[in-house]
């Protein structure tokens, strides 16, 4: 059985889990309602207190939406952040915090970090297992967007060579990310520093935009990429080339290399990357890490938080469901005359049971289905906001976990709905008829 289960495709397994989760509700409903047509009576009961019932369903919806939104949003963030790190096979930096370097290189969050020497860069760049080694240089910004110094090769690699316009060919040229407000041909002056502390007029250099990268779905879409030599020169440092050589891009001369906070490495093979990581993880000189690995560690933490929040959300859903069932128990007293009437007209106890169960199950299930849609809508809205703020391509989508959570809630709701139905059966018929 276990072998058969594991041989199934993941989607088939998820679909079967969904069916299994919905099965209690289907079974209870079909057993209780078998041979009856309680629809018209249930409809009448719902219409009689339509607003109360609507509020019940909306409360359930809000509760389910919180759980669904949380699950969908966490997954969307995880996928988007993993996507952002796709092009960053290996990052080599000065020893320190891998997370800080991950945030600085992949997510372009400003940070002060130590620099790698020209010798280290040279050893990395000339390594036979390195296909591309791009130094990065931070420190400047324009209109809130970071200005990153790097090489033309890295810009082509990052954008899959999809650049509208031309690559920078001089120190005074720049390529912009797809989300930048500048146009090709525009000139701008990089400010020194970031955010409120950024100072204009420090460098006194005007750069011209020559190209625009296609969207990458990463924070690099709202960045300006310039020759690394430009950043070094603007900060009064050597340009990586002999003084009389206005060269652009590698190879860099170690003797004139001013240092770089990080080198983004694209390896020739996966095995090669592991060898590089081992080789350049040196106590005093450098550290090499896989951004994907660091991200998965972060995701594991996020996953723990998600689990805790999911549990809280489940508890809140249960509390809402219990509150609603209490409300339904009160509401059934309002219907006691109608239920007594049905008994007096000869309706079997199971029919009255089916009517009350159907009403409760319908409200809870409708609320759950509505919550699923609201949760998705909220997650989509949040994703748009996060995308706008981080430039990561965050896409919310309904996944199996949300469907499973909703189905589990419906299953539980179908069991809880038995409570008001049982309560109604205990009400004496004659007392009900007399109101």
């Amino acid at each position: 059985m276990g072998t058969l289960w594991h041989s199934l495709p993941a989607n088939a397994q998820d679909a079967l889990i969904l069916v299994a989760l919905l099965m209690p509700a289907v079974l209870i409903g079909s057993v209780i309602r078998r041979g009856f047509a309680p629809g018209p009576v249930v409809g009448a009961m719902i219409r009689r207190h339509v607003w109360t019932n609507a509020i019940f369903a909306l409360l359930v919806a809000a509760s389910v939406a919180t759980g669904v939104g949380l699950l969908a949003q966490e997954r969307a963030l995880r996928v988007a952040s993993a996507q952002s790190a796709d092009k960053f096979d290996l990052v080599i930096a000065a020893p320190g915090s891998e997370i800080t370097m991950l945030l600085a290189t992949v997510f372009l969050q400003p940070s002060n970090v130590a620099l790698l020497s020209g010798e280290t860069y040279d050893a990395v760049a000339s390594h036979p297992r390195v296909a591309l080694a791009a130094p990065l240089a931070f420190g400047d910004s324009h209109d809130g967007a970071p200005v990153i110094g790097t090489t033309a090769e890295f810009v082509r690699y990052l954008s899959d060579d999809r650049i509208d316009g031309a690559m920078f060919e001089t120190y005074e040229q720049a390529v912009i990310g797809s989300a930048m407000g500048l146009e090709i041909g525009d000139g701008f002056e990089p400010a020194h520093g970031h955010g409120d502390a950024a100072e204009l007029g420090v460098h006194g250099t005007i750069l011209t935009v020559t190209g625009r990268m296609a969207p990458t779905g990463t924070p690099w879409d709202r960045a300006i990429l310039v020759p690394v030599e430009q950043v070094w020169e603007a900060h009064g440092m050597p340009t990586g080339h002999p003084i009389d050589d206005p060269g652009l891009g590698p190879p860099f001369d170690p003797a004139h290399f001013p240092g770089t906070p990080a080198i983004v490495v694209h390896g020739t093979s996966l095995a090669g990357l592991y060898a590089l990581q081992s080789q350049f993880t040196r106590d005093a000189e450098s550290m090499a890490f896989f951004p994907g690995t660091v991200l998965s560690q972060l995701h594991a933490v996020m996953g723990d938080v998600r689990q805790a929040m999911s549990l809280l959300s489940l508890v809140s859903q249960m509390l809402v469901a219990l509150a609603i069932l209490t409300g339904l128990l009160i509401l059934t007293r309002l219907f006691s005359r109608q239920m007594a009437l049905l008994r007096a007209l000869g309706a079997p106890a199971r029919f009255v049971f089916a009517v009350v169960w159907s009403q409760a199950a319908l409200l809870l299930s409708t609320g759950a289905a509505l919550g699923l849609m609201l949760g998705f809508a909220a997650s989509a809205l949040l994703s748009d906001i996060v995308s706008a703020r981080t430039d990561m391509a965050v896409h919310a989508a309904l996944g199996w976990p949300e469907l499973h959570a909703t189905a589990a809630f419906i299953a539980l709701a179908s069991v809880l709905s038995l409570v008001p139905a049982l309560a109604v059966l205990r009400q004496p018929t004659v007392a009900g008829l007399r109101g």
Partner: protein
Amino acid sequence: MSLPLRISDLKVTAGARNRVLVDLPRLDLQSGQSLGISGPSGAGKSTLLYAIAGLTEHCSGEVRWGDTDFLALRSGARAAFRAAHIGMVFQDFLLFDEMSADANAAIAACFAPKPARTGLRARAETSLARLGLTDTARSVASFSGGERQRVAIARALAGDPAILLADEPTASLDRDAADRVIEDLATAAREQGTTLVTVSHDQALLARMDRVLHLENGRPVGTETKRAA
């Protein structure tokens, strides 16, 4: 089809001290006869009616409809007997206001066996038409009191009952509407040969019954009176 009623030593009690609400040593009613139950408020008229309908739990004695000892049946069997043989009409109609007259009259179709549903709906429709109700697709909330009670009568007749039980069917109506309902009940009972038992203060209704049983403090007082010719 109608069923005779035989009651022997019927006692309905209530409370921890078994206070006697109804104490009826004997009552016989032939098939197709009508019986009015009268008496002051609190005399036990409705309690007796509900006991005859098998709705009261704390009963002893015998209520026999035809060959069926009704009180000896379990709750489910009593419900099935009511569905098959008894139609009931109440003082304040007890309709589902959110449903149409058609749906109210045919409400038993919701719990009837599937093969019986079509016939039940057809009979409900016929009964509504016979009682002079038109535009029956609209909600009963928009109907007058008299019309609502006629919908309730149509509901009671839809199951083609052998027995019709009515609890103060005219008490919530004005005189004209009450007279119309009395006529409708009496006509339906006569045409279908139904045994009719009705609780009422309404002398006009009681006057149309074959016999009248007067209750006081849950006990019959004096002799049963025959309806005046």
